[in-house]
């Protein structure tokens, strides 16, 4: 069974049709990259999957359960949306770390707040917090940030901030990680340190959707690549097919422009 099914998603901003009927499926452990020019709708698609934007029409199905239906989303309470968002980890282009918290606190904040909803929270508070902190440190260590626990975002480079942001999302054990152009705000030199972290997640069989402009990376890390153009999926396939043998004219144009 597919872990995620996106069915006939449509989204308008005012009169502009940003997504015109987008559908795709992905399996557990699969890494899907979404490429395409700016304004093709790839970021909006990613944001619709975890409800940062509400699609006008269509369905999102997670593990066979419809978690979003464009016809019915108005009935969904904030609380329901909040719970469902937790199935996904989301990494932003602009990191969006919380500036007043240290790297470690950024990673532990949400797990600690969520732990308060646990029934055994009162009895085991110290134990739960200790586990959360150990887990956060383990994540930061594996992202090469072992010495940056107490640094504030303003003291970290862009690449380090983005790695903290990835750890922050992972700390909630999401089923699927969503990356929205995770390296677009970074120097080319720093880009690699972030890509390495994402690559290591792929090696650990994390299910991921990555919106990116890094073609070489998309080719190297993905099981499948989706090319979006003008609000639709114009072409999709294995990275080899997409990059060496593009079928549609639009993709050929896009790739030749990017390569220059």
């Amino acid at each position, binding site marked *: 069974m597919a872990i995620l099914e996106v069915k006939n998603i449509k989204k308008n901003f005012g009169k502009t049709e940003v997504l015109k009927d987008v559908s795709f499926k992905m399996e557990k452990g699969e890494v899907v990259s979404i490429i395409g020019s700016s304004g093709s709708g790839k970021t909006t698609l990613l944001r619709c999957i*975890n409800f*940062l934007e509400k699609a006008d029409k269509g369905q999102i199905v997670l593990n066979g359960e419809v978690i979003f239906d464009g016809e019915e989303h108005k009935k969904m309470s*904030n*609380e329901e949306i*909040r*719970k469902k*968002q*937790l199935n*996904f*980890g*989301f990494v*932003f282009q*602009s990191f*969006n*770390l*919380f*500036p*007043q918290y240290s790297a470690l606190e950024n990673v532990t*904040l*949400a797990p600690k*707040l*969520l732990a308060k909803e646990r029934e055994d929270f009162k009895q085991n508070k110290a134990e739960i917090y200790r586990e959360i902190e150990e887990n956060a440190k383990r994540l930061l260590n594996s992202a090469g940030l072992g010495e940056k626990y107490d640094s*504030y*975002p*303003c003291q970290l480079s862009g690449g380090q901030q983005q790695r903290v942001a990835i750890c*922050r*999302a992972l700390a*909630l054990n999401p089923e699927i990680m969503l990356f929205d152009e995770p390296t677009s705000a970074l120097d080319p030199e720093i880009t690699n340190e972030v890509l390495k972290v994402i690559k290591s997640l792929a090696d650990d069989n994390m299910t991921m959707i990555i919106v990116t402009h890094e073609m070489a990376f998309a080719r190297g890390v993905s099981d499948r690549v989706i090319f979006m153009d003008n609000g639709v999926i114009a072409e999709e396939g294995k990275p080899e097919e997409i990059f060496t043998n593009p079928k549609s004219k639009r993709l050929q144009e896009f790739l030749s422009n990017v390569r220059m």
Partner: protein
Amino acid sequence: MQLFTKVTMSLLEGLGTTLKIFSLTLIMALPLGLLISLGSMSKFKVIKYPVKTLIWIIRGTPLMLQLIVFGLGPGLLGIRGMNMFVAVIIAFVLNYACYFAEIFRGGIESIPKGQYEAGAVLGLTKTQVFFKVVLLQVIKRIIPPMGNEFLTLVKDTSLANTIMIYEITWNAKRMMNSEHILWPLFYSGVFYLALCGILTLIFNHLEKKLDYYKG
């Protein structure tokens, strides 16, 4: 020397009233200001526009005029026994709440959307996002303009003398008239300077305390 002591005692007495106006205004205008700012950002037009109109009227007319309206207005309408001090507090609270509201609004609206979104995707409730993520950032951003308002308030308390509240300036003027001397007026300035000096130090300290992070 005796005269100096006499003037000092009189101004100290006025200082008590001045501090009373200052602190009562802050205690009530800060929460009211937050409420007004939330109203002015409301999605509901029936709340938003009346609140915006109130802000416009209060910020668009002199505080002196508002003091007179609240101090003398009730009497003109035939309502007897309006306590002048209460009138002063109402006028100051309303006036300052409207200025605070605009500062709060500016602070809240200056927080990037990404902070709210980051909170949302991490499963925080709206309340948690406000108190755990946004609030401290807002406070950091509004400290400088708030410092301004606090200093202005110290000096604005002198306006209360127009409706016969015996604060520092009133007492200084009374001394000038009764003793036929000019210097109590300048002396009163020292009191305001000292108060503003203390506030400036407090605000500098707060700014330094929140200087550990940027953004």
